[in-house]
Structures are given as structure tokens and as C-alpha cells.
């Protein structure tokens, strides 16, 4: 199967419904790890930079469609792509997490994106880089939660 074939499968209603019933991020990741479509796509993308970038582009393509969706929101499709990015390329996973984090209407994808961003902050903090500490995030009565500036150094050092 090509990457396009996997996209078609993963964005189908049947695929999304399987994961939308779950009760926590740990369960979703556990289920994704056991799904044959996801694991096959992961195998295909591993080690292929162009395919990894295609996963990121596919997330970018889907995000604007989330708000207009009336049945399912592609949340499960997006987290499947983000899960694969996380497993293949932390840098692209972090970039994807940033744009996912700013998209309303997602649950699982934003949950995983938060986890990836938070992890990166911890890495940066442990390396004493310039990433802001959690306590410096904006806190007010009507919170907005902008994603902090990216620091790729931690990722690059981690994957080196």
C-alpha cells in the first residue's frame, strides 16, 4: 500500500470510530500500537524523511477541516499521524504538535500534542536551554495557552 492508501483508510469513518470510544490517551496509544493499518504505515515511513514530511503535511491539510466536520472531526486520524511522527521523527512531531495545539475541537490529538510539547520543555529545562518554564506560562482568568516558542536544540540533542 502507498501512503495515500493509508491516508484513505485512516480518514475513513470506520477507522475513526474504533478509537473515538476510548477513555484516555494511554488507551488510544495502546490501541494505535495494535492497529495493523497504523503499524504498517509506521513501518513504511520509518527512515524515509519524505514520507515523514508527508505525514506532517497531511496533518496540516486536515486541521482546517476539523471545525466544519459534523460527523467525526478527524481527531482519530490526526492522532494516528502524530503517533507515527512521534515514533519516527521527534522534530516533526513537535512541529505538528504546535499546530495541533492551536486547533479547537480536538481531544486525543491535542492531548498527545500537549504531552509531546511538555516533554520537550522538560528536555530543554534539563539541558538548561531557553525554553520557558511552566510557571512562566500565561495565567489569567480567561486563559489562552499559546504554545511556547520552539527550541529544537533539545530534540536534536535527544535524537543524536
Amino acid at each position: 500500500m502507498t501512503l495515500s492508501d493509508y491516508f484513505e483508510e485512516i480518514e475513513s469513518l470506520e477507522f475513526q470510530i474504533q478509537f473515538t470510544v476510548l477513555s484516555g490517551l494511554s488507551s488510544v496509544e495502546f490501541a494505535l500500537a495494535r492497529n495493523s493499518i497504523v503499524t504498517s504505515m509506521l513501518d513504511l515511513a520509518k527512515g524515509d524523511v519524505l514520507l515523514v514530511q508527508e505525514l506532517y503535511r497531511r496533518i496540516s491539510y486536515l486541521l482546517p477541516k476539523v471545525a466544519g466536520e459534523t460527523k467525526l472531526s478527524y481527531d482519530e486520524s490526526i492522532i494516528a499521524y502524530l503517533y507515527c511522527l512521534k515514533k519516527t521523527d521527534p522534530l516533526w512531531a513537535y512541529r505538528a504538535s504546535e499546530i495541533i495545539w492551536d486547533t479547537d475541537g480536538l481531544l486525543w490529538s491535542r492531548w498527545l500534542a500537549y504531552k509531546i510539547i511538555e516533554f520537550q520543555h522538560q528536555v530543554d529545562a534539563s539541558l538548561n536551554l531557553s525554553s520557558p518554564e511552566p510557571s512562566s506560562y500565561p495565567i489569567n482568568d480567561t486563559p489562552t495557552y499559546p504554545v511556547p516558542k520552539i527550541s529544537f536544540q533539545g530534540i536534536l540533542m535527544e535524537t543524536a
Partner: protein
Amino acid sequence: MSLQYFGLQKPIFARNGWEIPQPNPLVLEKFRQTEELVSIQTVELVDELLRKGKTELHIRSVSAHMYDCVGLIFANRRSWIDIEHIDNILQHDGYQPVSIDDLVSGDVVVYTLAKKRVHVGLVTNVMPAMGSVPNIRVLSKWGKHGEVEHRLEDVPYYLGEPSEYWSERAPHDLKRLF
């Protein structure tokens, strides 16, 4: 990270005072669904499952409020509580394992997939078994969707299979007295 931070989330405690972890409110902040959307999604979901032969599903309710299967049973539909905490919750609330033969309405069923706890439901009715097949009805919340009443074993694949039964009743052989 404190659950009360930002004032967006109230703490929930188990019977012995243990604070039950809830997802970071930042995660849930931008996830808002209307009841209409939840209804459409739930009907789609149940239709899909009905087509696959699980024919005894009944949608009890849909709600745009954020709660899941654990929140339904242990937080009165007030909160989303990750299923990964179910073991601690059962322990801190004083639940004990029971056999399937001792189940009564109000007891709890834990579903597992490859030995991982992935779902929990509330027993609503225990009827005489049909041969060797248990005839038990369960109410559970299916992720972001509605509450569904279903046969014990009729849940989507990734919600696993019924494998553990728990009750806070004590003593658990009380029903033999009646």
C-alpha cells in the same frame, strides 16, 4: 501539577481521601462539543456497530459535558478520568473482586484488551443465563460519545472484553440471605 490550577477543575476524591487524577485542564480547554454533534456522532457509531451485528445497543443519553466511562461511575458524570487510574480508584474506594456469578446491579465490570484495562461499565441488570452465556446488561460511556446500555460483551473491539468484576458491597455473599 495541581488540579485546581487556573480554577478550571475541581478535585475529586476517593472514599479514603485519595485525590483522583484528572487530565490537565489545558488539554480539555478547547475541546467543546454541542449535544447535537455528540448525538450525530453517537448515532453514527451505534449504526456502524449495529451493522457489525451487535444488535442490542440502546443509547441512554448524550451529553456535551466532558466525562468518560470512569467519570460516569466514579464521578457522577462530572469529570473525565483516564482509565489508567481505574486500579487505584477501585483500591482506594474499597472495591473487591467478585465472580461473574455473584454480580448484581450496581457492580462494576472492567474490560481488558491484551491484559490492559481499557474500559469500565456499570451492571444494570442480571438475568438468568441463556445456557452458558451470561445475560447481563451494562451501562457505559463510550469515549466522547453517549452512554450506551448494552449486553455485557457487546462493546467495540478496542474496549476489550469483560474480564474483571468488582463490587464495593460487603460482605459479597449478602445476596444469599435474600
